[in-house]
C-alpha cells in the first residue's frame, strides 16, 4: 500500500517526533468527510460574509420585474434564483441574510457557553467538594429535563427580569436568543471539561507544576485548558449546531426572534415556509432547509473528525 507510511504517521507510529497538535491535525486529514465539510462550510461562510456583493436584493426589498405583473410567489427563475416569497421578496437573498444571522447566533452562543462552561467545569473538576456537587446536580436536572420545555420556562422567567432584558434585550431579540442558548449550552461543556480535568489533574505534569508552587489559576490556564483543546473544539462545534437548530425549533413554534425587527434567520425562513409548502410553493422551504442541512451536516462531520483526531481511542476504526 503506497499510503502505508502516511498512515503510520497518522496513527503516531512515525519515528520523527511530532507535537500532539500536529498529530491531531494529521489524523483529522484522514477523515475524508470532515475535510470535505471544512471546505463546503468555508465556502458557504465566505459566500454569506460577502453578502453585500453576493446578495442580489436587500433583506426586505421586493423583486420588481417589468415583464410580469405580479412578483409574489414566483418559482425560481433568472430574475429570482430561488423564487420569491408571499410578498415578493427574493428568497436567495433572504437565505443569505438568514444564514448570516443564524451563524452569528450559533457562534456567539457557542463561544459564550464554551467560555462559561470551561471555567465552571475546570474549577469543579479541580476543586471538587461542595461546588462540584452543586454544579453537577444542577446540570443533571437540566440535562435530564426535556430541552425545549426547560428552554421555554427559563425564557419566560428571564424575560420578566428587568435588568436582564435591559442588558440582553426583550424576549424576541437576537441578543436574548444568544443569552438563552448560552445559559443552557455551558452545562454540557462544563461536564465534558470536568471529566477531562479529573483525568488530567492526576498526571505528573500537573503535580510538577503544583510542586513548583503554581496557583490554581495558573494550573488551569497553562496546563489544564491547553490540554483540553480537543474536547473544547468538539463542544464548540456541537454548540454552534445546537444553537442554530434550537433557534429554528423555537421559531417553528412561534417563540423565536421577533420577525417584526426586519432581520431574518434560518428559523424564521423555515417556520414561514411551513404553510406555504402545502400550497405548492416548494422553493420557500427547499432553499432554507438546504442551507440549514448543509450547516448541520458539515459541522457534525467536522465534530466527528475532531473527536477522532484528538481521541484516537474512539472511532476511526483503528481501535
Amino acid at each position, binding site marked *: 500500500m503506497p499510503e502505508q507510511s502516511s498512515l503510520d504517521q497518522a496513527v503516531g507510529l512515525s519515528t520523527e517526533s511530532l507535537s500532539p497538535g500536529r498529530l491531531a491535525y494529521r489524523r483529522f486529514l484522514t477523515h475524508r*468527510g470532515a475535510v470535505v465539510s471544512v471546505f463546503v462550510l468555508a465556502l458557504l461562510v465566505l459566500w454569506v460574509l460577502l453578502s453585500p456583493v453576493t446578495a442580489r436584493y436587500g433583506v426586505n426589498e421586493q423583486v420588481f420585474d417589468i415583464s410580469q405583473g405580479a412578483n409574489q410567489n414566483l418559482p425560481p427563475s433568472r430574475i429570482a434564483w430561488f423564487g420569491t416569497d408571499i410578498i415578493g421578496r427574493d428568497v436567495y437573498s433572504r437565505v443569505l441574510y438568514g444564514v448570516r444571522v443564524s451563524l452569528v447566533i450559533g457562534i456567539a452562543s457557542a463561544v459564550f457557553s464554551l467560555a462559561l462552561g470551561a471555567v465552571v467545569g475546570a474549577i469543579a473538576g479541580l476543586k471538587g467538594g461542595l461546588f462540584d456537587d452543586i454544579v453537577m446536580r444542577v446540570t443533571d436536572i437540566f440535562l*435530564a429535563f426535556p430541552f425545549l*420545555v426547560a428552554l421555554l*420556562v427559563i425564557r*419566560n422567567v428571564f424575560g420578566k427580569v428587568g435588568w436582564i432584558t435591559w442588558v440582553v434585550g426583550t424576549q424576541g431579540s437576537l441578543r436574548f436568543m444568544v443569552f438563552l442558548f448560552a445559559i443552557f449550552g455551558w452545562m454540557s461543556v462544563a461536564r465534558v471539561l470536568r471529566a477531562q480535568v479529573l483525568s488530567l489533574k492526576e498526571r505528573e505534569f500537573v503535580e510538577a507544576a503544583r510542586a513548583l508552587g503554581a496557583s490554581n489559576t495558573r494550573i488551569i490556564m497553562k496546563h489544564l485548558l491547553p490540554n483540553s483543546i480537543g474536547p473544547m473544539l468538539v463542544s464548540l462545534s456541537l454548540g454552534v449546531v445546537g444553537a442554530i437548530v434550537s433557534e429554528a425549533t423555537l421559531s*417553528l*413554534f412561534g417563540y423565536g426572534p421577533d420577525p417584526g425587527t426586519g432581520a431574518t434567520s434560518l428559523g424564521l425562513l423555515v417556520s414561514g415556509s411551513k404553510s406555504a409548502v402545502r400550497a405548492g410553493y416548494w422553493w420557500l422551504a427547499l432553499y432554507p432547509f438546504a442551507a440549514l442541512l448543509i450547516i448541520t451536516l458539515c*459541522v*457534525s462531520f467536522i465534530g466527528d473528525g475532531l473527536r477522532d483526531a484528538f481521541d484516537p481511542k474512539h472511532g476511526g476504526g483503528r*481501535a
Partner: protein
Amino acid sequence: MLRYALRRAVWLIPTIVLVTFLVYVALRLGTDPVASYRRTNIRVSKKKIDQYIAANGLYTGAFGYIRGYFSWLWGFVTLDWPRSIKGSRDVFATLKDALANSLRLGIIASLVGILLGNMLGVFAALRPGRLRDTVVNSSALVGLAVPPFVSALLLQLLFAVYWQKWFGYALFPVSGVYPPGHQGFNLFLMLKHMFLPVVVVSIQSIAVYSRYMRASLLDVLNSEYMRTARSKGISERRVLVHHALRNALIPVTTLAFLDVGAVVGGLIITEGMFEYPGMGRFFLIAYGNGDFPEMMPWMVVIIGSVVVFNLLADIAYAKLDPRIRLA
C-alpha cells in the same frame, strides 16, 4: 444491592418535591398565572379569581410561595386538581390520555431504535474501518444532524401533499391519532396515523443506538479478556455472543432506561409537527395559554419519570456490571 437501591430510593421523594418547588416558582414568575387566567376568562368575577387563587395556591409574598406550594401539593396528592383555565377541562383525564398517546408512540419508536440501532452497531463494530463501518457510521451522523422538524416536514410533504397531487389520495395522514370525528378504537387507523411520527423519532433513535453500541462493542473487543477468551480456544461465535455482546450491552441498557424516562415527557417537536395529542403537545398548548393548572401536573409527571428512570438506570448498571463498586 438491595441496600443500595433502598438508600437511593429514599431520596426520590425529597428530590421530586424540591425540583417541583423550583418549577412551581419558575412557572409563577415566568407566566403570572393570575394574569393569564384573567386574560383567558375576561368577564370573570372577583369571587372566581379568589377561588382560582385558593385552588392553585397562588398566594403572593415570599411566604406565600411556600404556603402556596404546599397547599397546591396537598391538592395534587389528594387528586383534587384545579380545572384548566381554558375551557375548564378536567386536567387529570386530559393528561392521562396524553400520557397514553405519548407512551404508545415513544415505546414503539424506542423499540425500533433499540432493535435496529443495536443490530447496525454490532454489524459496524465487527469490521471496524471497513466499508460497512463507514456506511453505518456516516449514516448515523447524517441521521443525527437532520433536525426532527426537517424530517417531519419532508415526510409530510412526500406522503401527504405530493402523494395527493400525484396519485389522488394521501398515503399517510399528517396529524392526530384518528381522522376528525372518529369515534371508538380502531387499530389500523391508529397505526396509520402513528407511522410518520414513529419514522421521524426512529431515525434519531436508530442513529443514537447504533453509534453507542458500536463504541461500546469496540471498547469490549479491544479489552484484554477478549484475547484471553480467544486464547482459551472458545469458538469465535461464543466469544462474540457470551463475552463481547453481553458486556457491550451494559451501557446500552442504561441508555435504554434513560430513554424510556424521556419518552414520558413526549417527543415535543415531533408531536408538535404532527399535531399528535401526546404529552409534548399537551405542554405546548398549555404553555401557549399560560395554563398553570395544566402545566404543574405535567411537570410533576415529567420530573417523577426522569428521576425514577435515572434511578432505575443506575440500579441496572450496578446490577449488570459486577465491577461497579457501590459507594
